[in-house]
């Protein structure tokens, strides 16, 4: 257990190092001089040198990187190029709770729907219910989120025309604004989790110990939930970390099309303004979120599976 934790911690440090290093390098070797861009038509050599110094761009590369990482460790994501003197963190911190709320809710909903649905499909393997679930989830899983958005809009319009309560199609502010982004984000991962749960559950139900449990005369529900489900859940838990990564990619699209002021929305705004430090900041922030989620997944896995704990 201790060796596992130590090894996990070392890999965590390595991953954080690579994340910040690659992000830093992509920004550092970007074509064009950021200070010249910032100064616009004013070409005063004195101001130029002063700004270069203020942003630390006159120091050696590794010193700059060390300063960058040191700043990150203290929650300092650097200064914006677009809004002079404003910290990157000031610009993106508003998006953090929005993205975490929408993404977290979507993840919880997809777990709550996907796992039971997968179990049902596996228990009723090859039945009409199974085939319906399979077909439906294949669609949800393979249709990209930005194709689901117009479909959802059509549904909203139909609801509206029928004088039924309809959620707003875009925007932010009221709780109704959460309905569309959360539903669309949850759709893809629900499809994926259902299919994964189904296949591991089918595999588990074929195991000898499940047959033994049945032979002992245990009730069906007991066998399904106590013997099979607990074991089938393990592989499902391992993909929770990676699915956060896919929720993030989805969030970029959903937040921008539905005008949700989260991290993805703010990043694309910064892209439009060529505000590189902000783009780097959100990249690091989202990367760290995924890394931490993977860590939590791994730890949960260790707690749930005694074979890993005893190793």
């Amino acid at each position, binding site marked *: 257990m201790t060796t596992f934790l130590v090894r996990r911690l070392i890999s965590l440090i390595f991953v954080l190092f690579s994340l910040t290093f690659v992000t830093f390098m992509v920004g550092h070797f970007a074509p064009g001089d950021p200070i010249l861009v910032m100064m616009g038509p004013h070409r005063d050599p004195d101001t130029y040198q002063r700004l270069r110094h203020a942003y630390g761009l006159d120091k050696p590369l590794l010193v700059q990187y060390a300063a960058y990482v040191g700043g990150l460790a203290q929650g300092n994501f650097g200064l914006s190029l677009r809004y002079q003197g404003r910290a990157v963190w000031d610009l993106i911190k508003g998006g953090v709770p929005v993205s975490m709320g929408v993404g977290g809710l979507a993840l919880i909903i997809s777990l709550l729907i996907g796992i039971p649905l997968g179990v049902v499909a596996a228990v009723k393997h090859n039945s009409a219910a199974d085939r319906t679930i399979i077909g439906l989830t294949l669609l949800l899983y393979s249709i990209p989120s930005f194709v689901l958005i*117009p479909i959802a809009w*059509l549904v909203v319009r139909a609801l509206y025309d029928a004088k039924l309560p309809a959620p707003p199609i875009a925007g932010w502010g009221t709780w109704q604004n959460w309905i569309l982004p959360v539903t669309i984000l949850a759709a893809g*991962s629900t499809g994926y989790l259902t299919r994964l749960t189904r296949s591991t559950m089918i595999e588990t139900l074929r195991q000898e110990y499940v047959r033994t449990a049945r032979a002992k005369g245990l009730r069906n529900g007991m066998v399904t939930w106590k013997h099979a489900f607990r074991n089938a859940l393990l592989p499902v838990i391992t*993909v929770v970390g990676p699915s956060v990564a896919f929720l993030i*990619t*989805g969030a970029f699209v959903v937040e921008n099309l539905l005008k949700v002021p989260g991290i993805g929305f703010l*990043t694309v705004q910064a*892209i439009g303004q060529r505000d590189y430090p902000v*783009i780097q900041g959100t990249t690091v922030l989202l*990367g760290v979120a995924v890394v931490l989620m993977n860590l939590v997944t791994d730890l949960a896995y260790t707690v749930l599976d005694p074979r890993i704990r005893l190793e």
Partner: protein
Amino acid sequence: MATQPQITQTPEMITQNALVATVRRNTEVTIWQRVRRNRTATISLAAALFVVLAALLGPLLYRVNPAATDFAALNSAPSARHLLGSDNLGRDTLARLLQGLRVSLLVALVAETINIVLGATIGVLAGYFGGWIDNILSRLADMLFAFPGLLLAILVAAIWGPAITDRYGGVGRLLLVATAISLVTWPLMARYVRSQTLSLREQEYVNAARALGSGDWRLITHHMLPNLFGLVITAATLDVVGVIVGESVLSLLGLGTQPPMASIGRMISDAVPFFARSSFQVFVPCATLTALVLIFSFLGDSLLDILDPRGR
């Protein structure tokens, strides 16, 4: 979801399946015969060929300038003048769609070429020689895997995109997008290839060839690579889905193709503000993209089945 997680099969599973297939290759029917016997494979392969032909020949047969504006027909429905209608600037949707297909397939082609050349070469070397090459590969792969989904591609395209477009134009931008996407996919290919090379290396016939005096180079080119072919093609086909969706996401966010060049993602983002007036303009690119995703997913899955006789 924007990009599909491709974890339904672990590298070991794919490798094993492909291995079983390669070992049996000579005793059973050829791959082509198996493709023809598998209905999903036949249909999806035909559909994929149709898409490629449409992208190559379409603009030659349907000679309408995709950038030409027709202010007499803004956001129009399908008509004899504009077969699939027109967008908010009166540009012909069918012409733009055909150009968008070209963009999607070109990006997929470049990204997969990088993916295969880089991934397969490094994977074979790491699996065959082990040691420091293997160590460097694993570290490099871990480094790039640290970036979730499209994040690295978004970062690279956002920071390098404008300057590349200024210097090399629209095609340069496309190459940048393809490279940015394949940056995060080739380590996966390298891992697949590496683990299959590891098991191939221990095969009897490889030992026999070595005993007969074959050198490393001959062993790799004559005994490893032919047996890796199926695995590489399958992994690349499944990866195409992620690349096509990735390019659309980047274009949708304004990071991919720049106006006037059309792309499926850009067609969607251009049409979305006018959804209330002409939802048809949103659905044409959306349906095309969904079709592309389904075609390549089914093709990849059926190739996987064909390479794994136990699966049926």
